Structure formats: structure tokens, C-alpha cells
């Protein structure tokens, strides 16, 4: 669909603050919008997963809410959890978008099992998730791996990994497609991924930017710093000895020192905080929480070796 300049500026106005895009990116976006640019089509495929990343995306508030994202910003051609069409009609929608000129954003949620020639995950008749990746990756302009399962295998690949589940880049390599891939693959891990990490990356792409990625393919903006470095429990001198105690959780198994994420700053499940005409801030917008805030040790869910390398989660 067309995104009107006014609509996107409304959304862009939300993209300010210490954790947001560089100003130059926004100006590029405004230029592009003035030129009547269209929102790119998005094809969202689910492999071996739990839909938690999609549910998390529905919780988006920092940049924009999910209705702003779906109605005003993106052209979501295929998403099995929310799309109206079912069966053949749905498959056709995905395949038509794949074959159209101009490319698309391919989003992968969930891992891709290579075991038994991909038979542990069929997404529609005659098509395994492995088949789907093979068929949809080549024409994509950018591939977003959303959630740790899609990035690195995650929970779906937990030892002994009976289905040979793997993340997108490994699966593309398995298919022989990684070397000559036209698209950039961006890894947005988390179990689930935070909605801001997903929407913030999408917003950067729409502004014509390619986010700077770390060695694990993750946007530096969200994953550039260890949880521990910004944890409010640091330097308090007080350690928790028993679960539900206040204080540093390092002694109870916290993986914050090994985990890259901005959770201490951003936290989770905040309300809508922007004051826009027609959409004022919610009264309890600042009510939010996070794992360590709830006195539970960080589980390291954004890291490539989650969960096996982070287990056991506790050291009680």
C-alpha cells in the first residue's frame, strides 16, 4: 500500500530519543516519502517456533504501535498468524509477492529443520520450511531473522537437536545459497525478540539505512553492549543469595555478563509514551519491567549459544 508522507512523518516523529535513528536517516526517509515511495512488501514465514516473536511484535510501542505498523507502514503480504486468507489463497499471496518486481523484505521466525530432508516442518502442501527458504531467499532485498530460533537455531535446536534445526544463515549455507545471496541478512535475536528491536530495524531500513551489524549479524544499536554493563544492580554492593532477594543476581546464575542486549535501558512491555495529536500518551505508559527487574537472572536469550550455552539457567 502507499504510505502517505503525513502518515509516516507521524510515525517518524515517534522515532526520536537516545536510542533511535540518526537524524540523517530520518531526513533520507522524508526525502523518500516526499518522492511518493511505497512501503516494501513483507513476507513473514514461520518455521519451527512458538509464535512468541510475533506476539512480542504485537506489543510494539516505542517507535509505533502494531496498527500503525500494519496499516500505515508495511505491506504485510503473508503472515500465518494474522492474515485473513487461508490455504491456497494464502500460499498464492506469498508466491505472488515473491514473484513481483522490486523484491521484498523476507522475515523468518522460527528455526529451519534440515533433518529428514526438512520433513519436520511443513508450512504448506509440498513445501517444507527448508524448501520455502530456498524459494523465497533469492528474490529478497533483505532477510530479517527474528528471534533466536531464526538467528541461530535457539530453543528449537536445543541439544540433542533431533530435527537438525538451524538458523537462517546456517540453513542458507546448507542450501548453498549463502555465498551469492543478494540480500543482507540481519539477525534480531531474543527469546522472544523485543518489539523495539524489530520495529527499530524496520524503520532504519525504510529510511534507507543498513544498520551496523556485529560479528553475529545483530544491529549494534540494540546488541552492542553487554546487559551487565548497564545493569542497575552493579556497584550496589548487595548480592542476592536466594531467589526473590534484591541485589546482584550474578551468584544465582545471571548471564548478563555474557549477553548483549539493551534490556536494562529499554525494559519490556512499556505502554505508548508519545504525545501525538489524536494519539495521546497512555496514562501508565512508563509501567514496564524486565527479567532482572523481576529478580530473575538473565537467561542470555539473545546469544548464539542460547539455550545450551546458557544452561543451567540457575546456580542456586
Amino acid at each position, binding site marked *: *500500500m502507499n504510505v502517505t508522507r503525513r502518515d509516516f512523518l507521524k510515525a517518524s516523529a515517534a522515532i526520536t530519543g537516545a536510542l533511535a535513528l540518526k537524524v540523517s536517516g530520518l531526513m533520507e526517509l522524508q526525502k523518500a516519502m516526499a518522492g511518493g515511495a511505497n512501503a516494501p512488501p513483507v513476507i513473514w514465514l*514461520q518455521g519451527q*517456533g*512458538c509464535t*512468541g*516473536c510475533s506476539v512480542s511484535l*504485537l*506489543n*510494539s510501542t516505542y517507535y509505533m*504501535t*502494531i*496498527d500503525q505498523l500494519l*496499516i500505515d507502514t508495511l*505491506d*504485510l*503480504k503473508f503472515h*500465518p*498468524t*494474522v*492474515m*485473513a486468507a487461508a*490455504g491456497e489463497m*494464502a500460499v*498464492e499471496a506469498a508466491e505472488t509477492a515473491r514473484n513481483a518486481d522490486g523484491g521484498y523484505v523476507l522475515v523468518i521466525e522460527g528455526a529451519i*529443520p534440515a*533433518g*529428514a*530432508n526438512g520433513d*519436520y*516442518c*511443513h*508450512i504448506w*502442501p*509440498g513445501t517444507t520450511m527448508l524448501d520455502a527458504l530456498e524459494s523465497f531467499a533469492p528474490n529478497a532485498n533483505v532477510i530479517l531473522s527474528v528471534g533466536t530460533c531464526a538467528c541461530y537455531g535457539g530453543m528449537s535446536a536445543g*541439544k*540433542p*537437536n*533431533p530435527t537438525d534445526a538451524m538458523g537462517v544463515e546456517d540453513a542458507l549455507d546448507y542450501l548453498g545459497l549463502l555465498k551469492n545471496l543478494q540480500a543482507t541478512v540481519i539477525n534480531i535475536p531474543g527469546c*522472544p525478540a523485543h518489539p523495539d528491536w524489530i520495529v527499530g530495524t524496520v524503520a532504519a531500513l525504510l529510511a534507507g539505512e543498513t544498520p551496523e551489524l556485529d560479528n553475529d549479524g545483530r544491529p549494534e544499536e540494540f546488541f552492542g553492549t553487554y546487559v551487565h554493563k548497564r545493569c542497575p544492580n552493579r556497584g550496589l554492593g548487595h548480592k542476592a543469595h*536466594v*531467589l*526473590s532477594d534484591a541485589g546482584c543476581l550474578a551468584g544465582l546464575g545471571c548471564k548478563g555478563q555474557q549477553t548483549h542486549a539493551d534490556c536494562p535501558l529499554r525494559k*519490556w*512491555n512499556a505502554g*505508548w509514551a508519545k504525545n501525538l495529536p489524536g494519539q495521546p500518551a497512555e496514562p501508565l505508559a512508563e*509501567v*514496564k*519491567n*524486565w*527479567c532482572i527487574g*523481576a*529478580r*530473575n537472572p538473565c*537467561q542470555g536469550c539473545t546469544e548464539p549459544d542460547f*539455550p545450551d550455552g546458557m*544452561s*543451567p*539457567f*540457575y546456580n*542456586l
Partner: protein
Amino acid sequence: MATTITIDPLTRIEGHLAIEVTVDSGVVTNAKSSGTMFRGFEMMLQGRDPLDAPHYTQRICGVCPISHGMASCLNLEDAFGVVVPDNGRILRNLVLGANFVMSHILHFYHLAALDYINLDDTIVKDMAPWDPNYVTDDMVTGDTAVALVGHYVQALAMRRKAHQMAAIFGGKLPCAPSFVPGGCTEVVTQDKIDDFRTLLAEQRTFIDGTYIPDVLTVAGAFSEYFGIGVGCGNLLAYGVFDLTDGSKLLARGRCNTQLALDTVDPGKIIEYVAHSKYRDNEGKNPADGVTQPKADKPDAYSWLKAPRYDGQVYEVGPLARMAVNYLSGDPTAVALINGVLTDPQLGGSEEEPLPISVLFSVLGRHAARALEAKLVADAMGGTADDEDDNGWLGELVVGEPVYSESDIPRDASGIGLTEAPRGALGHWIDIKRRRIDRYQVVTPTNWNASPKDDLGQMGPIEQALIGTPVANTEQPVEVLRVVHSFDPCLACSVHMLRPGKNKPEVVVHTRPSI
């Protein structure tokens, strides 16, 4: 002439589901429900630290993670022999209750409602992902459609705020880290109680003023669906939300179309595998089952096993819970359900209420779900009429413990039975040398979307599809309406691989007609 059609992917559910129906003279005469994805959580859990279980199992499902967290904690608490302090029990109930509300709102508006609405008069006309869609003559149009779509958008914010509410004590949603065996890691403060209460009030206003009325509006416009999707006629609930007096807000029990109420003995659950892709030749109770996957097993068409109770097919979900409460005489459930049965919009009245049998239907499931959302939300906050009743929030005590420490026993077994929004959920554990030796999960969608069992009995969704009229096999929206009424969650039901000593044999998978 009979036509066989397959809806794959069956969208607006959680996970990967394929539905095949045979339509003969405009009516469904055969149905097969098939889960098409598999991960192997149970193999993953084997050998691990039991304390990891609540966090691993929450990742079985991103829509109902809290239910798995609860089941797993109850399971471990049973095995460890630890008693949860009141605050901890209530906090977990609040997080689970908030997720029930979130899930039910999500289900009606964002998963089910599009089956009933023609979007041509609305702001999302011709807009992906709402387009393309089936368009049938019976769909609501005009002002009703516009209102429902407006509420759909409003419901996106409401379910997000239900998660915000849940995170106050859960830590983050989806996948709440604060659920641990022994209680909860998050603590009680007055600010948190007040914030939860404020967000809850908004949820209750939405449920009472928008969600329930919208369900009744759709029911009024599609009243024939009180007689479609009857299903197996047997309902089962483990019960959920343990209260201070030892009872459960939603009771454990079984009932059926004869309105006979009965007890539940977990020992009578058998998972059959004749049509399931596992190597076993006979069904087993989850505490004993040992099987291996076999993708090319003859006559097998699903990765789901077929759980049955005492050899019979049982449906689980909000309908089962509300019906058990109704027949148990719970005044709240009785009033809520009688309110529906006497609603003039549905053709009922005080003098001539609709018969109870209408609940065993597509619309019965939607109505039960909406009423349950109200029942749970009201219990969390207390009765508006009674100043002394502040609900579960009113029972929290700032400063009291939320967690009881315990040691992991060397060898033990446990069972944790609770309810997910979609129905009865059970976790079973055997611990040996302080590690998980066996971990079993039987989910609600295992029950509801199960294939045929060894006795040839179809699963609940399959049975509910039989007799459904299909006007146009190119636009089988009636099939979607029946399946969606169960709120299927397939990630939950296809995660299990019964532990064998070896890795599953890799066999060439020949996919049958589904």
C-alpha cells in the same frame, strides 16, 4: 459427488495445522486434522537441571507460555514437595489470569473475527494482510463490519496492555522469567498492586463493554452456528487458579451433553498412536509412555498423538471449564451463562431460555471464552458491588514472602495439571540423580486437534467438522469457523518426542493427502 479439500496452511491459529475435509452434497462427511511441525522438547529436557524446565517449556508456545510455566512449576513443586507461599501463588495466578484475558481477546478479534466480516466497507479494504480473504454472502457488512474492525484495532491495544499488566509481576511477556518452583521471584509492592489494578479496570471495561457485546452481535447474526460444530459432546477440565480456600476458580471435572458431572483421574489418560507418527503399537499414560517418531508409519497422518480419557474422546477449553463450573453450581458461571441463554438478541428469554445444548457449538465456544475472560478478570480485581471484595489483588500482602526455597530431590516424580487458555494442560516429570530423566507434556490442542485413536474414534475438531455445511468448496469459510472456535495452538501439541535411548531414525517422509 464428494470433493476432498485441504486447507493448508490453516491460518489465524498458532502453529502449523492442515485440515482436510470431504464435502458430499454440501456437507462435511469426513475430516482429518494434522499437525505438520515437530521440535522434540522432551528429548531436549532429558538430562537437564529440573530448574530449567519452567523456562524451556514456556518456549513451547509464545501465546500461552505462562500456562506452561505454571504447569511446570506445579509439576516440580509436586516432585520437590515444596509449598508455595500465598503471595507467590497469587502472583502467579495474576500473571496467568492476565495472559488468559490477553489470549481470549487476541483469539476473538485477531484470529477468529475475520471469518465473519466482509471488509469492503472498512478502512482495511483491499489492504494486506486483511486482503485477500474469502468473501461470502453471510458475512456482516456496513456499520456492523465497520464497528467490528474498529474494535479489532482497539483490541490490538487492549491485548498489548494485558501483557503490560502481566509483566508487572511476570517480568516480561511473552515468556515470563519470574515463574520458579517455590513461587515467584518478583515481589509485592503497593505501586505494583495499584498499577495492576488500574490496567485491570481498563481490561474489564473492554470485556464488559466491547468484547462480550461483539461476541453476542456475531452470534446474533450467525445463530445457525449454535447448531454447527457440536463435536464429541464430552468436556474435560483439570481446573486452574488455586484459591486461598483450597478450591480452584475454574473447577476440575468432566461433563457431557447429558449434563452429567464427573471427576477426573489423571491415571485414566491414555495417548493413542495408531494414526500418529510414532513407533509404539499401543497407547500409554503420559507417566509411562516411551515411543519414537516414525514418519512413514502406515495410516498415520499427524505428528499429534491422540489423548483419550477412559477410552473416550474429550474436548478441552473455555467451554469445558465454564460448563463444569456451571454444572458445579458456581453462581458466577451460572449467572453468566444464563445471561447468554436468555439473551433476546440470540432468540432467548427469561421465560424460554435457549437450551444448554447450544453451548456445544461454534458459538458456544466463543461465548464461553468471552464469559470466562470476564469471570477471570473480575476474580483478579474483585466485585465492583462489594467494597470488601478486592479480588486476588486484595489478598496480596506487601512484605510477605513470594518464594519458598527447596532442594532438588535425588529421585522423584511429579505431575502438574493446570489450564491454558485453550484447555487442559499437564506436565509430568521423573527426576533421577537430580536431573530430568523424563518430561512429558500433554497440551489442550493435543486433545482437540488429535487424529483418530486406536479405536477409530476421531478427535474433537475432526468430529466437530462432520456435518458442517459448506456452500462453496472454493471458499470453505465454514470450515475455518469451526476450527477457529477451538482456538488451536499447534506448537503446543507437536513438541513431544517420547524418549527412546536413540536418536529418532531418519526415514523418508511420505506425506499423505494432508
